[in-house]
Every structure is written in C-alpha cells, then in structure tokens.
C-alpha cells in the first residue's frame, strides 16, 4: 500500500466513520439514561433518509442549481431528516418504552420491544414507500472540491464529514454544557437520586430520545446522499454503529464518536486490503479484540450500574 492509497482509503473511512459516529450517539445516549439497547434506532436512521428523499422530491431540485440553491436543498434535507428522525424517536419512546417503564417491566421485555419496534417500522416503511431503493434527488453536481496528497475529496464526502463533525460538536456541547445535558448525565448516573434532586426523569428521557433522533435522522439523510434510501437501510449501519457505541464504551458520548470513527476507518481498510466480502470481519474483529482487553470499551470507565 502506497501513501497515496493510504490517504485515499482514509478519506473513505472517515466518511463512513462520521456517519457511524453520529448514529452511535443515539444508541449511547439512550443506553446512558435507560440502560436500554434501542435497536429501533436503526429505523430512526432509515426514517431520516426517507424524510430527505420526500422533502427533496416535493421541492424538485432544478437541473443546474446555483450554490445558494444547492445549499438550500442540503439544509432542507438535513432538517427534514433530523425532524422526522426525532419525531419517530419521540413517539417510539412514548408508545413502546414508556408504558414498560411505568410497569417496571424486566430488561428483557424492553429488548424484545425494541426489536419488535424495529421490525414494525421497517416493514411499515417497506409498505409505504415500496421495497425498491430510492436514490436521493440530485442537489448539486458532485465534483471534486480539493485534492490533498493526490487524494480527491468530492462535495458529498466533504458534506458528510463536515456536517458529521458539526453534529458531534453540538451533541458534545449539549451533553457537557447545558442544563439538559446535566439532566441526562444525572439520570445516567443515578435516576433515583436525580429525581430526588428535582430532575424530571420522563422529560429527560424524552428529550434524550429527541436528541438521538435528530442525529440519527440527519445521518440517514447524509447516508442517502452517498448511497441510497431503502426500507432496510438501517440494519447494517445500525448494527455497526451499535458496535461502535460498545467499542467506545456504551453510555459515553465521546466514546461513541471515537468508536464510530475507528470502525469506519477499520472497515475501509479491510475492504481495500481483503475485499468487500471481508468488510465486517475487520470491524467486528477489532471490536472483539478491544473488548477482550477493555471490557468497558475504549473510553468506558464506570462499570454499568446494576439495575
């Protein structure tokens, strides 16, 4: 592998990694406050993709858009994706998880509900939008923006990396610097004490889902710009992002970011060196190795609180 190859593959890996990192946040935030593996998060991601396609199909992008128009389409897509993702996440919590919490249902029931909700949502999407993949309407001419070390970066790649990083910074700020963030961290640490201290747990949980949903939905749209939108599109990226959250230390937001980026890059190099058939061997092999050495994940410190 020459240096040129290295940079080339690294770019592909960072593009993938940014998406995984943004999705992984949804898993890790929800796990933090509820100790729940929200498997339906992959469908929040899928909804975001469809949201973007629908919004852009309604607007009908012009054939040769100006810079401002292109930017408008992209922002519209991200916002619709994020809002739709958040809506689904919000109702998911209200309909699927809150009743279980009220009744103090065992953890296993939450997990089964999550898997059930996931199946329900993607089959619903398949019914509503058809089983065929949909391409994202063209928002811009996807040309090369700049070249570093002989590696070209095109608009879509730049868009995904930049908006991914921006979203990660926003989440990091929200979790570490705002009132909602301290609420989330308090509930994650000890829900009973948090509620004694005046934290409204229901509100915090609901908003955590919305925050994760915003990120997941936006990631769905971004994924659609580089690949396509289809009803099962959430499954593999969802599983990978979940693994990324575990790799980084589930419950830890910065860990999810780091884990997502790591898995994306490992995946890109695996594909380049061993071929597509080995895609998930590399990434999940790395996951197993890391967990053998550090069972709590790269940045995970606290042992999960006993429920």
């Amino acid at each position, binding site marked *: 592998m020459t240096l040129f*190859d290295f940079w*080339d*593959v690294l770019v*592909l890996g960072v*593009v*993938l990694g940014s998406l995984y990192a943004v999705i992984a946040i949804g898993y890790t935030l929800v796990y933090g406050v509820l100790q729940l593996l929200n498997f339906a998060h992959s469908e929040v991601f899928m909804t975001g993709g469809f949201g973007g396609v629908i919004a852009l199909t309604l607007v009908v992008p012009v054939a040769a858009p100006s810079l401002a128009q292109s930017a408008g389409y992209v922002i519209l897509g991200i916002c619709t994706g994020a809002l739709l993702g958040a809506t689904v996440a919000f109702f998911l919590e209200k309909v699927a998880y809150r009743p279980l919490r009220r009744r103090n249902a*065992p953890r*296993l*029931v939450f997990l089964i509900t999550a898997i059930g909700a996931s199946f329900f949502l993607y089959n619903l999407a*398949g019914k509503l939008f058809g*089983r*065929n*993949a949909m*391409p*994202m*309407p*063209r928002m811009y001419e*996807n040309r090369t923006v700049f070249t570093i070390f002989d590696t070209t970066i*095109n608009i*879509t790649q730049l868009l995904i990396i930049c908006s991914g990083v921006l979203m990660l910074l926003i989440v990091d700020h929200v979790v570490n610097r705002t009132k909602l963030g301290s609420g989330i961290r308090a509930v994650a640490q000890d829900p009973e004490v948090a509620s004694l201290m005046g934290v409204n747990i229901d509100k915090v949980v609901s908003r955590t889902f919305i925050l994760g949903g915003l990120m997941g939905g936006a990631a769905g749209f971004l*994924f659609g710009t*580089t*690949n*396509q939108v*289809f009803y099962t*599109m959430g499954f*593999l*990226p969802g599983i990978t992002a979940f693994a990324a959250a575990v790799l980084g230390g589930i419950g830890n937001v910065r860990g999810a970011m780091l884990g997502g980026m790591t898995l994306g890059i490992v995946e*890109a190099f695996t*594909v*380049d060196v061993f*071929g*597509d*058939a080995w*895609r998930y061997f590399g990434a999940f092999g790395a996951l197993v190795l890391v967990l053998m050495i550090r069972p709590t994940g790269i940045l995970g410190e606290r042992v999960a609180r006993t429920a």
Partner: protein
Amino acid sequence: MLSKRVVKLAIPVAIGALALTACGDDGGGGGGDASGTVFKIAYQGPLSGDNVDLGINMENGVKLAIAEANESGDYDVTFEYLDADDRGEPGQATAAAQRAIDDEDVIAVVGPAFSGAAAVAAPLYGEAGMAALSPSATNPDLTQQGFPTFLRGVPNDAEQGAAIATFFAEQGVEKAMVIDDLDDYSIGLANVAQQGMEEAGIEVVRESVPSDTVDHSGIARTAVTSGADGLVYTGYYSQAGPLAVKLSEAGFDGIKLAGDGVKDPEFISLAPGGEAEEWYLSCPCRDLDADQEGRDFAERYEAEYNRAPGTYTPEAYDAAMMIIEAVAELGEAADRQSVYEAISVGTHDGVAKTLSFDENGEYAGSGIYIYRVENDTITALGDITEITG
C-alpha cells in the same frame, strides 16, 4: 421472577405463531375437490424483497397468459394463478415451493425465478412430480444435478458468460475486473465469464461484493486502482445502481457490462446522475421490438399493466402458455406428472422464442443479446453473434 414473567409472555406468543404457521400451510389445500376443471399455475419468484421488480415482471407475464387463456374461450378448463413468493432467496425457497405443492390444484410452476432458490426448490418439485419451468434461472449447474422435473426456458449462463468474454475480447479489453455478489447465479456467471476471458488472453481480476453491501466506495476505488479497462458485474440491479454511481465518482473510465440481473429500468433510476449511461447489459432475453409478434405482445401487456414488459416478462408468458396448452391438450385428466411429461418433450412457439428442452431439461436453443443504456433507456444492440461477427 423475571423468568416466570418471560415464560408467561412467551407461551401465548409461541402458540399464536404455531397457529399462524398451521393456517398458512393448509390454507391452499381446501379447494381441491372443485369440479376438476380448475387448474392453477403457480409462479415462484421474488414478489417482495430487494429484487421485487424482476419478480413482478414475470408474475405479470404469467397472469397475462392465464387471463388471455381464460378469455379466449378456446379451452374447456379454467386456469387460475397462485403466487409463491421466495424473495429471490434460497432461505425462503422451501416455504414458497411447499405453498405451491400443497395446493392440490396447482398443476405446474413457472419458476423458480432465481438460480439460488431454484437449487433449493427443484428437488421438492421433483418429489411432487410437478414441472418447474424456469423462465430465468440461468445457473448452468441446475440442469446437471438430475432434478427430475426442472426445465429451463432460457439459454444458461455458460452461454451468457462466453458471450460476455467474446464481447470484451472484441472491444479490445486487456485487463478486466469481474465482480460477483456471492449469490449462486452471480458466481456461476462470473466464473464462466472469467474463464472465457482468460482463454481469450484477457487478464482478469476477480472481486466479490456481497449483495447486502450498502457502501460501494471501496470496490469502486479498487476498480480504478487495479488499472482494469473493462468491468463486468454479475449481480442484480439493486446493487448495480449504487455501484455505477460510485464507479463514476471514482473516475472509472473502462467498458462496463452487467448481466441479465441488471437489465431493468430500475437500474437507470438508481443512478440518477446518468451514471448508468453507456453500461452494456447482456441477457438471454430477446428484444420485443424486433418483430410484429413481440410488439403486439408489448401492446397487450401495457394495456393490462400500464407499464412496458420487463426483463423475462415474455419468457414467463411463454412458459405459462406452454403449460396452459399442455394442460388443455390433456384435458380434465391432466395431472402434475402427465403435464411435466408433455412439456418436457413438447415444443412451444412463443413470443420470445421457440421453447423446447433436451433430455436434461436444458433449453434447446441459443441466443444471447447485448443491450446498452443510451439516453436513460435500455437499447438493444442485437444478438451477440451479429455484434461480434
């Protein structure tokens, strides 16, 4: 405590699931004692899942044949349709085949559509003594395994692969990348194409991209850096669309060709930036525009379904018509075995081609056609022998 609750929940769920399965199994068998004049023709193929468009193209062909047969008034018996959805997956093929077999009225099957599913379902149809006439399963091995009632109504991939190799040699390709999607059909076609090209002196790089891959940037990069000036993809259109997009982004400028699994208008719409342009498509399916009979068929089909006939629509129509004629010939005495025997030695002059079979159930004939995507439409270039001379 926890486990008790789970058990409480699990028991009704399990019972419910069992009850549902039971219903599904004997749901079709009830109507067996009808007047004896109703014969069902089943179609087994993908009616859901990623490749549903290919399946529906064929299903509509079968339905049209049945509708026309019933309306014509030429036959004393009535035909009905039964769907057997296998999603195009080997894992679903047993259930789909069983659905057709368990329905006593089903006299023969058009399908299985996909090779992987056909390899699983063909032994079951064999046991049931029921003809399985596939309009599209092109894996060469299928007729070599001694399945008692499997018939193939198209030239197989050995022929298609050889045609691809001839075409690439003709185009002056020196180094080709061959990509399969790890499915039976795909690997089979890729193997033959690779072998043919190597014999023609073309250097071949072989890659596999699993059919559930969502990101094609890696393989596109590999294609560019390999220095290949030709590329063959032997998977299906749902993956070929995004692959075409990424290849164009990565700047691949060699000749691109895909097999019959990609010959669907959906391929073009999955590459909305015109990335499918100039892709060649090989297919053992004939262009309907070539003669009057084909154009008439296309007209009737469009009047019924409001869409143009797709890949293998005429082949599926022909297969269903051949079964219908065989049943009509045998009259009310027709049963699964006698229909199979009649078809296997019979000849049917169809819309797409004349159907007949050799002793292995292999299609007795030839003809691979090359198409090209031009201005967002799949345009026929002609028979491979005409093109390469």
